Structures are given as C-alpha cells and as structure tokens.
C-alpha cells in the first residue's frame, strides 16, 4: 500500500460507508489480482521447465526423418518409436545402460550401508569431536568430482581396477556418501528418542530397539536418500568417462559418441537418460525439503 492511497482514503470527503466499501472492493480486487499474478508466474515457470522436456519427448517419439527435418514438428506426428528403437539398438547402448544400473545399484547399497551407522551416530550420540566430524562431512559434500576423478583413475590403473563397473561404483559411493550420511542423520533426528527408550524399557537391547522400532520408521526417509544416490550416480558423467573405456555407463557412452552420431541418436539418448530421474524425483519429492532443511543447519 502506498502513502498516496492511504491519504486519499483518509482525507476523502465521501461518506464513510462508501469509502469502506470502495476500500474493501479494492482490497478484494488487489487480492484477486495478486492471486492471478502468482498463478501466472507459477504457470510461466512450469512451462519454462516443461516445454524443453516436451520438445525432447517429441524428438524421441518422432520418425528419424522428422528428427532430421526442418522446420521440426512441435509434437510427434506421426507418433513413432523408430527413433528410440534405433537408439536402443545402437551398439553399446543396452550394455552401457546395464552398466549404469549396476554402478548405481552398487553405489546405492554401499553408500546406504556405510552411511546408516554414521548417520545414526551423529543423530543419537553426543561425543567429543562430533561437530568437527559433522563439519568435515559437510565440507566434503561439495568436493569437486573433477578433482577426485583424475587421481583415482591413476590409482585404479595401478591397482588393476581401471575400467571396471565396480570401481566406478566405489567412486560414486564416495561422492554421495557425505550427503547420504547427513540426510540419514536428519531422518533419525526426526524420530523421537523416546521410542527407543521405551523399547529398551520393555526389554529390547539397543540393537533390537534400533532394528524393530527405529529402522521401520526411518525406512521411507532412508529410501529417499538411497534414490538420491541412484539418481546422482545415474547422471554422473565426468568420473564415468575418465574411469571407464570399455565398460562405459550410459552418459559416458553418449558423451563419447556425441561428435560421431546424428541427431536421432543424441535426442533419443537425451530423453532416455531423463526418464528414470523423472520417476524417481516423483517418489522422493515429499522428502526434498526435509532433507535439505536439515542439511543447511
């Protein structure tokens, strides 16, 4: 509200009721207008995000002829799976997709298994060095992949672990571990300690209390953290292209072939990489804020 409108309302010689009604109408108007503008902005941003996804979807499900054509169609007409089939049948694609899955699954399991006890310790115990450890974990969370990938490649070559899916999985585990620890810690922090105490009062050991009471409650949050690990590993390309040659993951394979391949391969590949992430984000969307909310502290 500006000063001018206040003055005009206060100083207006018109009868009180009329002024009140006018002000109310104006307020309502302003309210509707504000709502409408919020909607407009929300829809504009949603379109900004969705339109490019729609466009790559269009490319993936048009015929290869349409993909190469100009001007391009803005929706698949005719709808065709030829392009995506061509992509999937290109040599190396299925194999690298399988590799991507293996790497991501190993990273997910390993990272969750190692992070769970650590997260629990940070959430439940007060011990000397706790803040230092937390801070240390926080600071390696943002550690550049580029910095780690080069020396690890050299070490892996020396140890005979180069170009293996499991060594890339080890690397991805390292990348996601800090975040996973903090997320899992935040999940445990969200569960009241009284539950465990009660279980212990009723004769459970500490381990039993954890296994039977805390863990079942923490599963959804831990699963969300695990999904995050999967997505990160599935999307990671720099370490993947450095650490593998014959056992490439999907992003590494696509990146490697980028210069040598035509638009149908690229666009179908772009869409294909997108799909799992879209699904996974849908499942963990509820947890995003609680995860990050805790992480910022």
């Amino acid at each position, binding site marked *: 509200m500006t000063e001018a409108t206040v003055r005009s309302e206060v100083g207006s010689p018109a009868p009180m009721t009329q002024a009140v009604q006018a002000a109310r109408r104006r307020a309502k108007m302003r309210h509707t207008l504000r*709502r409408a503008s*919020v909607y407009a902005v929300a829809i504009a*941003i*949603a379109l900004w*995000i969705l339109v*490019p996804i729609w*466009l*790559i979807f269009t*490319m993936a499900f048009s015929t290869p002829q349409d993909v*190469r*054509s*100009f*001007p*391009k169609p*803005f929706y698949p007409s005719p709808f065709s799976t030829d392009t995506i089939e061509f992509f999937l049948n290109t040599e190396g694609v299925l194999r690298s997709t399988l590799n991507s899955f293996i790497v991501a699954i190993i990273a997910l399991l390993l990272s969750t298994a*190692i*992070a769970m*006890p*650590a997260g629990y310790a940070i959430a439940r*115990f007060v*011990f000397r060095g706790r803040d230092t*450890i937390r801070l*240390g974990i926080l600071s390696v969370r943002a550690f*550049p992949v*580029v*910095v780690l990938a*080069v*020396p*690890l490649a*050299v*070490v892996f070559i020396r140890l005979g672990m180069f170009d293996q899916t499991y060594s890339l999985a080890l690397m991805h585990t390292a990348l996601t*571990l800090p975040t996973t*620890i903090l997320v899992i810690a935040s999940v445990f922090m969200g569960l009241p300690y009284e539950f465990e105490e009660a279980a212990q009062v009723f004769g459970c050991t500490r381990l039993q209390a954890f296994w039977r009471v805390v863990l079942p409650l923490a599963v959804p949050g831990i699963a969300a953290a695990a999904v995050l690990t999967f997505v990160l590993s*599935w*999307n*990671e*390309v*720099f370490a993947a*292209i450095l650490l593998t040659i014959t056992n490439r993951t999907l*992003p590494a394979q696509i*990146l490697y072939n*980028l210069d040598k391949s035509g*638009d149908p391969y*690229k*666009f179908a*590949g*772009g*869409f294909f*990489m*997108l799909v*799992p*992430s879209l699904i996974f*984000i*849908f499942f963990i*969307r509820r947890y*995003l*804020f609680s995860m*990050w*909310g805790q992480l*910022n502290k």
Partner: protein
Amino acid sequence: MKKTKLLPYLLLLPSMIYLLLFFAYPMLESFQLAFRREGQFLNLRVEPQDEAAVVGTLALQTDVTVLERQRLEETLPNGRTRPFYWFRVEGLDTAGTTIEGWASQANLFIESRTESTTARVVGGESAREWTLDYVNRMLNDYRFGSALGTTILLVVLILPLQFILAIIMALVLQAQIRGSSLFLYIFAIPLGISDLASGIIWYSIFTQRGFLNSFLVGTGVLESPYIFIRVGNESWMIAAIVLAEVWRATSIVMVIVVSGLQALPRDYIEAGQVFGANLWQRLRYIILPLLKPSLQVALILRTILALQVFAVVVAIAGRDVLSVLAYETYRWYDPQRFNSPNMAAVYAGFIMLLSLGVSLFYLRAVRSEEEAAKLL
C-alpha cells in the same frame, strides 16, 4: 559405560575410513601427479661398482670430464667376456657444485672408451623430483586463459539468474496457491536431470535445424535459419549454455531457499505486512537478510558446481570449440589425446583452489558484514 562411549566412533568408523580412502588419498596422489616428475639421475659411486656408496647425482645431459678409467670384464650369457669400463668423472650437479665419482659406461656417452677425456650423462636410475613444469605448462597453454575466462564468465552469468529465479520459484510455492504440490513436483523435476541430458535438450533447441529456428522461420520472423552455434559465434553458445544450466540447476537452489523460508519465523514477515511493507520491501529488508545462511550454502554449492561445468558445454558447443577448465582437465587426461594425467591433475588442482577460494570468500564476506553490523 565404556561401551557407549566407544559406540559412536565405531559406528562412524566405516564412513571415516571410506572418506579418507576416497578423498584424502586421491588428494595426495593428485598432489604428487601435479608437482612430481619421474626423472632419471646418474648416481656417482665411490668405487667402480654398482653397489658402491653414492657420492652425488648428475642430471641427464650433463657434460663431464673423465679423470680416470678402469677396465673390467663383463661375462655375457653365452660365456664369453668383453671389456666393460667404469669412469671416474667430474661434473656439475643440479645445485651447481662440482662433484666427482665413478659411473659405468652404460650411463655415459663417450666417443672412445680408452681415449676421450669428456663424456655426457645419458642414463641413470629413475627418481622422482619436485617440479613446477606442469604448472608452468598449464599457465602458458594457449587454451588456459580462454578456459578460465569462459568458466568465470559462465559462473558470473549463471548464478545471478539462478538465484533470482529460485527465489521467485520459492515465493510462488510459499504463496500456497491451489495445486502447489503439482507445481512443487514440476519445479523439482530438473533436480533429476543430468547436465548431459540438459545440454542435449538445449542443443536440440539451438542447433541450426533446431526448435528455435523452426519457430522463428515458422512464424516468419526469420526467412532462413540462423546458425546460433558455430565457431566465431561464442556469445550464442554461451547463451545456450547459460540457459541450459539455469534450466537444470535452479531447482537445487530453490529447494535450499524453500527449506530456508520454512524455517523463518512467520511473525517477522507478517509484521512486515502489517506495517505496510510491499513485496519488494519485505523481500529486501526481511526475507533475504534472514535467508542469508541458506543462500550462502546454496551459493557455495552452486559456484563449486558451476566451476566444473563440463557435459553441458560439450553437448552444446561440441569438443574443442569452447574451452572450460573441466573440459581441459578431460582433454589432457584422455588416453586417446594427450594422455597426461599430470597436466590433468594440475588443472583439477586449479579448479580445487578456485572452489576453495570462492568458498572462503563467501564465508568471509558474509561474516565480515555481520561483524560490521554488530559494530554499528
């Protein structure tokens, strides 16, 4: 009670070992790669024997004067013998002092074993030495300047756009309009999109036969397609990369900002409303100052990630067209190209230093402002 004291450390142990193994050890290795070189040095001996004590070392290609020679016999595998010479030589070592000692003919180039008075060191034992050669090579590389410039330009262009958009997105979600959970999902979608996929998507828009040209020609704005992405048209390539990055990576900032907003005391914002502050004033004087810690986290995270921008650049501009620091790292490392892990480690170390510097700068800048506020 001793058990409970040890327990948290035991629980943390696997993680700590893993992180040390995969963060600390590679960092040491990286340091070695960047600053140490495998070199060959000739060890001069006290006596004409391989196992004799070492007097000093000479670098390869050092010219030496032969002071004395000794003829020995060497037995070949077939049982025959042949002469094998050791020379007592004198030369300047790397520190510039004159040293003398024995060296075998295997490591010296000498015209006549029996008569020459000078020789040159051509062999020796391998040893590692400290070197700044790789660093100098990076600094003098013709692509280094443009790689650094482009990377910083991208950071400077991407971050402000991202933060403005993320704050708008967060405010829209906070407005609690109907369907906000749907909007939340849509706004969060890019969280799962890889930089490579994002690069490919925006390439499909900006390429010569792409969607943008299809639209512009279809609506009659242009008569023939404009080639946005080509050598010599850097500004359009940068624009496409910035759009791809803003499109993909704004969601993470949004998530951090929203969780920051949720933690804010509502009274402050309501108080602002009651006292008639408009949206801009509330944002400028209440919300943003309170959000500072969240914004700081997001800023550090995003800057570090933006300094490593790689796949988007390759997908949009192609290889070797537009250089950024992470791409240079890959280019030097690539076994099919330069195959130099040392140079790659130097570039990676440089990115690391930049990230560290930027983080410290942000932390410092925010703290000093707070301290200044306290002083006032």
